[in-house]
């Protein structure tokens, strides 16, 4: 019924066509509307790089690696927990790296994105998505899921037995693994986990930044993601750990901002009402921090100007937040480095799948706090990674 693993896969040109047919056929099935022509997600695939000229190493190296690639096509699945700006940044960076590798070594890619639309946290959809990648005999799958450790590892295990390699990205696997204290890699069925910040997620860095800016003094409120999310819990732990190192700093209140801007705004307004004298607002992601920034404007309070005012700090590193930093609306954000995450994912994949390298179980991407001092290069870097028209 299904093709053998390793047999020549369906050529990459027919594949999008099939997607179109699937969608078209369902459409035809449904309304007898042959609306499939509207679905065109890449019939013009050519993998144009963003940079145009990639660094392929020396001539010998290039030809040797090209020989090792043997013109193979890697079939890669990409499963973000939701569709959002952050994951799009990661995906586009990955595309750029993919096209560079293609240009240098002749490797071909087949890329399929599947993400849950409304069901980021429960894992029900993630399970279905990953299983489909297994059924379709993908070579490797990148997963970021908010579903629990136990849920996902079990599927990875089953998939690995079928010959699919799993890579987690933007993950907190190291922290979630129940055996983290003695052996963080125990029971993992992933090839590698590409994340950032070894212990405390972005929260710790944000806390440190605040402490430094405020010189260890001040009251802080935090706006958290939806309560019940592990992500929220970890970032909160990290943040609180950082703050607890400074006795002059206290977290006086927190509220639910649901990871979205308007709820963040509402939560910040309520917190500002109750605690008008705070020095800083920590938004657990950038959107909520931007909501808090608006609340500061609405309350007629002053933003941080380097010496006084309220500091707002978020975390993500979104291109959409850079202007706010430049205008002092958002004091800072923890850039969890979507650019290098995307590139590292592809590099790790290439190293392991093509070159047969053993890769680290936990790979950590450098992170940086972006504020007005470094916003220019940070934005330029992200923008460059997004500029490529490459699509897979």
């Amino acid at each position, binding site marked *: 019924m299904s093709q053998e693993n390793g047999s020549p896969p369906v050529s990459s040109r027919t594949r999008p066509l099939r997607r179109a047919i699937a969608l078209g056929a369902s459409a035809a099935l449904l309304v007898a509307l042959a609306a499939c022509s509207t679905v065109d997600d890449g019939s013009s695939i050519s993998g144009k790089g963003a940079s145009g000229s990639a660094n392929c190493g020396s001539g010998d190296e290039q030809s040797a690696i090209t020989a090792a690639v043997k013109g193979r096509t890697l079939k890669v699945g990409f499963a973000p927990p939701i569709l959002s700006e952050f994951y799009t940044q990661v995906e586009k960076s990955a595309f750029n790296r993919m096209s560079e590798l293609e240009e240098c070594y002749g490797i071909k890619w087949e890329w399929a994105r599947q993400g849950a639309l409304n069901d980021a946290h429960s894992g029900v959809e993630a399970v279905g998505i990953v299983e489909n990648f297994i059924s379709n005999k993908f070579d490797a799958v990148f997963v970021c899921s908010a579903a629990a450790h136990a849920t996902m590892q079990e599927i990875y295990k089953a998939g690995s037995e079928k010959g699919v390699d799993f890579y987690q990205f933007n993950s907190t696997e190291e922290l979630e693994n129940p055996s983290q204290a003695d052996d963080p890699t125990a029971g993992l069925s992933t090839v590698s986990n590409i994340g950032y910040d070894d212990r405390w997620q972005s929260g710790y860095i944000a806390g440190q930044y605040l402490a430094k800016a405020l010189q260890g003094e001040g009251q802080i409120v935090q706006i958290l993601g939806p309560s019940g999310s592990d992500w929220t819990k970890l970032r909160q732990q990290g943040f609180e750990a950082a703050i607890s190192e400074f006795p002059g700093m206290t977290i006086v209140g927190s509220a639910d901002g649901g990871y979205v*801007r308007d709820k963040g705004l509402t939560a910040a*307004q309520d917190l500002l009402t109750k605690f008008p004298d705070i020095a800083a607002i920590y938004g657990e992601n950038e959107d909520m921090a931007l909501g808090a920034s608006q609340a500061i404007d609405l309350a007629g309070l002053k933003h941080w100007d380097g010496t006084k005012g309220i500091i707002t700090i978020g975390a993500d590193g979104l291109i959409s937040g850079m202007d706010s930093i430049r205008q002092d609306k958002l004091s800072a954000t923890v850039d969890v480095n979507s650019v290098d995450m995307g590139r590292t994912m592809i590099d790790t994949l290439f190293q392991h799948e093509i070159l047969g390298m053993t890769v680290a179980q936990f790979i950590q991407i450098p992170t940086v706090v972006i504020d007005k001092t470094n916003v220019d290069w940070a934005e330029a870097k992200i923008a460059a990674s997004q500029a490529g028209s490459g699509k897979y």
Partner: protein
Amino acid sequence: MPSRPRSAGQVTRNAWERLLVDPTLGVISLLLIFALIAAFALPVFYAGNNIYNLVGTIITVMILSIGMTVVLISGGIDLSVGAVMALCAGVAATLIKMGAPLFLAFIAAILVGIAAGLVNGLLITRVGLPDFIATLAMMGFASGLLYIATQGVPVIGYMTDEYYVIGGLRPLFGPVTFPILVAVILALVVGWVLASTKLGTHFFAVGSNALAARQSGIPVRWVKTQAYVLSGTCAAIAGIILAGRNNNVPADLGTGYEIQAISAAIIGGASLMGGRGRVFGAVLGALTLALAINIINLAGVPSSYQKIVMGVILILAVIANYLSELARGATLRRQAKRLSSIAA
């Protein structure tokens, strides 16, 4: 006068009795109780501009619930408001970003809202789908369109100085913000339509007894369709405002808003059976919801209890409305008795 009770007889009523027969009594009392609790337990409730903030927070839900009330009165339900709101916000934002003047972008957004309402109405009245299903499909369709257009990346870079005013992030004059003004005008206009125009009467007629409406020559299907168009328009207006308040339009902007809008309308006394509801009630219902979250945040209640509180409020509102209905019945009977004794 938009808020005139529909059943005002010529019986003279003192203020107390007028309150007792007011259909909004239930939600008013609920709101009062909350405000009292807040006042006693949380002095900070009246601090600064908390109440002003509270109103700013709830404007979008309020506008949605005004449209929802009309749909409920005409005997339907609209689950698509949240998704349509997000789609309209996306349309407005994208057009502005592409350089369109604000008012053109807004007109386009409102046209999209009207179109969505029209499709809802036609699916229900011409194709004959149950309202629940038709608007559920519209919810998927509208949010799908936004996802396709944005690929999940929020629309940004459309904010202008005017848009900050429109979003309510900067006041219009004095303490009045543009969204508050819009909400008030919308409430007055829709309230007036319901109470004093032919169309308003027809909304009630269609929701209360569709057969009688048809036999009286009312174009039942068209009236129902208009209710959905009105709801779609409200969704578009809410979307335009929310896009300004939010500064970006993520694809999931509208998630959960339909439930909030329905809850607000029901808390405000609208009936799912049709033929009953008031704009004023919807406005108060939306305020009640906002107040609940406000109290949770101010009191420092762990936000994990937020949803439980929402559920409990719904039940309380139903009970409050039921009690107010009892009070209303008793008062009316008393008056009837008094009237007949006068006659005799």
